């Protein structure tokens, strides 16, 4: 998914109706937003955080210092790790780590839904749709989290809904 398309999805999920235009920069097609009252903003997570503030939903950036830092950490993770690596091996290490992290968590910050969940969901979507039933079961915590976010009101939009089987088929896989 191109960054501009993703940001449009985010705008809709935040309830922003105006619809910004984005240009793309360089070979990595980094999104650029020209704001009316200031210099342009460059970068997916930078613009995303800006949109959240525009929509008056600052709570999506975290409420405490700790939450704020964690949200930004996962946003960085999204653009450096999820977007940066495309080899199968890397993705599996990434899913393994994430699965382990989400073991005791509902959302990335713990108990609160944030922008980190939204952008990680968008970023992982293309990998999760390709997972086999067995893999989905292997990364059980990721699957639970992913399934939860895709059902969060207004987030998924036109993206395909990924099917997760409630009953475990491969009980010995752990």
């Amino acid at each position, binding site marked *: 998914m191109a960054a501009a398309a993703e940001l449009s999805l985010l705008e809709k999920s935040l309830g922003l109706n105006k619809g910004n235009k984005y240009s793309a920069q360089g070979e990595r097609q980094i999104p650029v937003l020209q704001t009316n009252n200031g210099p342009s903003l460059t970068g997916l997570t930078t613009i995303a955080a800006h949109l959240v503030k525009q929509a008056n939903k600052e709570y999506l950036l975290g409420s405490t210092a700790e939450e*704020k*830092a964690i949200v930004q950490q996962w946003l960085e993770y999204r653009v450096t790790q999820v977007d940066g690596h495309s080899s199968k091996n890397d993705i599996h*290490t990434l899913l393994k780590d994430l699965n*382990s992290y989400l073991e005791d968590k509902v959302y990335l910050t713990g108990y609160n839904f944030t922008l980190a969940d939204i952008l990680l969901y968008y970023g992982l979507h293309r990998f999760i749709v390709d997972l086999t039933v067995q893999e989905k079961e292997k990364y059980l915590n990721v699957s639970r989290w992913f399934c939860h976010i895709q059902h969060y009101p207004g987030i998924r939009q036109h993206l395909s809904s990924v099917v997760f089987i409630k009953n475990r088929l491969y009980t010995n896989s752990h």
Partner: protein
Amino acid sequence: MRLFVSEGVPGCLPVLAAAGRARGRAEVLISTVGPEDCVVPFLTRPKVPVLQLDSGNYLFSTSAICRYFFLLSGWEQDDLTNQWLEWEATELQPALSAALYYLVVQGKKGEDVLGSVRRALTHIDHSLSRQNCPFLAGETESLADIVLWGALYPLLQDPAYLPEELSALHSWFQTLSTQEPCQRAAETVLKQQGVLALRPYLQKQPQPSPPEGRAVTNEPEEEELATLSEEEIAMAVTAWEKGLESLPPLRPQQNPVLPVAGERNVLITSALPYVNNVPHLGNIIGCVLSADVFARYSRLRQWNTLYLCGTDEYGTATETKALEEGLTPQEICDKYHIIHADIYRWFNISFDIFGRTTTPQQTKITQDIFQRLLKRGFVLQDTVEQLRCEHCARFLADRFVEGVCPFCGYEEARGDQCDKCGKLINAVELKKPQCKVCRSCPVVQSTQHLFLDLPKLEKRLEEWLGRTLPGSDWTPNARFITLSWLRDGLKPRCITRDLKWGTPVPLEGFEDKVFYVWFDATIGYLSITANYTDQWERWWKNPEQVDLYQFMAKDNVPFHSLVFPCSALGAEDNYTLVSHLIATEYLNYEDGKFSKSRGVGVFGDMAQDTGIPADIWRFYLLYIRPEGQDSAFSWMDLLLKNNSELLNNLGNFINRAGMFVSKFFGGYVPEMVLTPDDQRLLAHVTLELQHYHQLLEKVRIRDALRSILTISRHGNQYIQVNEPWKRIKGSEADRQRAGTVTGLAVNIAALLSVMLQPYMPTVSATIQAQLQLPPPACSILLTNFLCTLPAGHQIGTVSPLFQKLENDQIESLRQRFGGGQAKTSPKPAVVETVTTARPQQIQALMDEVTKQGNIVRELKAQKADKNEVAAEVVKLLDLKKQLAVAEGKPPEAPKGKKKK
């Protein structure tokens, strides 16, 4: 919470530097672990630094840890910081890891290392200089600065990888690196091993993949194209379409130029050159040429501009010169004033007035200011011990005494200032003084003198500086010099001298004394204006309406920022004081100093004989203008810049644009139908033009010249991509496209001719004549790029603008002017004679150096007493110095000790 760090892991630099921010808000325990330790339970790969929070959560991202510390200190997140941090993670880190890997693991050097990060470094430098803030996200140091500093430190702490031309990055990096938290972090992580401390860590990292897409070339780094919004493009197109009609009417030429209420009135002065010296290139770029660019720019902006300068004619040096040449001082001044005026005329300096200080007006105004100061109690009288040369039968002016500097021990300190440490000296304090004329030792005698009571005026001065400095365009060196003088406290300064050739002191008992140049040279600006117009006070007693810009080299700063303002404030006559003090650093010649006495360097009158046009000299001197740091004139570089920037870039573009109009369209500018690509180019040119304006408004003369060259590079690329010479032979649509490209290109050429006017006035006029640019468009530069050559406009005859400089031509000039290892020219020495040692002497010294070197080595090998070794080392260094002097080389700076 617990912070896990590891030696030799680069990410630990910023987190340690930022950890202090959390002090008082939370307790941070620091644990040192191995770089391969897996601290975070859920991560497969080892990761350091890590912050374990009290909640049990982990922060494993360097930026997130720093961010957390800043958040704890009450800092609020903002878009700009987010943007820098995202850029750091996605762009800078990959580039830096590659560079560090090449450097430390693969042992590569130079461009092989720098190549992968240059673009990122340039990006930071441009951002800093564009937004004109000392820090990345504003006026104060913040999260973004710490994170980027930490990332860059391992590489940039080696000066070889901090390109000098990136001056904004340079000063940002230095500022941060000298702060205590940063210094301590660097100490902890790099353990004084520099970048090599990272070796174990880097060896574990995967080999970086080669940079994609971009082929490595030696061409100047392609300027990153800024991103443009639809609005910006639309605005640029609208402005372009309005064309000539948006130009305001030309201001009628005024004579004399006087300030006008409600307009911007710009008064520009260039430091007054000493009449009895022929100025060298360093003098020319330092003041007159720099001020000229700004004056010309100011006129292009239609600001009401007066640019003045003149020769500083009083003083001992003139008296001596007169004796030497058997003329009266006045005759000497008359003779040399003309030499000066001729040189500046040749360099095309656009003075409104080029006057002189030996006029009745000078006496009148100086004496008036003096009387006012006297009446208000700001003048002291005191007995002074002064050096008198019995042999020459006269008191010695400061510049005619030489001796050992009482502060730093430099052996050739002048009587007023030490060239080495820069401290001001009272001539009697010199150790081992010598009369510079006869070399005999002068005696001390007492005599009465007048002093300006600077301590009494200090408070007023500080108030005025407090009002003036913030937000003004004083160069950093001018601020620094002024503030350091204030910090040391001002002392009364003697303002009289035992001479005849000067402004008489209107006080009983002082009939045989005159004012010292310290006091009256800066008053020269006023008297020169008074000789130009009897309404001079409208410029000089009008601080509300006049913006005063003063240009000089840095050694002149105290006279303009302290002494004259103190006189003017003490005189209480509503004088116009300097609003913007623009000081340059020094220009060196090849690898040494300009030296008239040794005939090294190019002097104003000789530049004409080289056959190189004045505009080329102007261009090159401005291109290397010592802005922010010293720079050096180099013949080879002059050749290179002429052939690459002027001939191949600028000249090539302008010539091609014009030639296409002549050859393909019969000399008439063709119809232009702008495509979105053209509109984008239009907007890029507009953006660069605005950048040029921003820089020149801040008197960043050298940097603004780069904008011109950038636009011309865009233009060349545009022609290259669109190939109008092929399309002209194609279909109707192709021919139309060729027309648009040619039309747009020739309009860019027209714009360049105006932007170039402050720098290369003759070339600018030549281009404008070739293109038949309508008169108002030649003399006004707006902030938008206009279509000044509309379809149907007929241009004149186009011909090449620049000539190639050939290697042998430059080499013979280099020989002639004594470049490189000082070759003494046949030109006779003026005052002092420095004789280069004979070969035998040099050989003898070399032998001694070798001998002494062996003694030191032996002592060291025997592990002899430290003091004994040190004593022998001192002898060795002294011998080496003597040798260097004998060979005519500048002595080597002592190594090992870092300058603070």
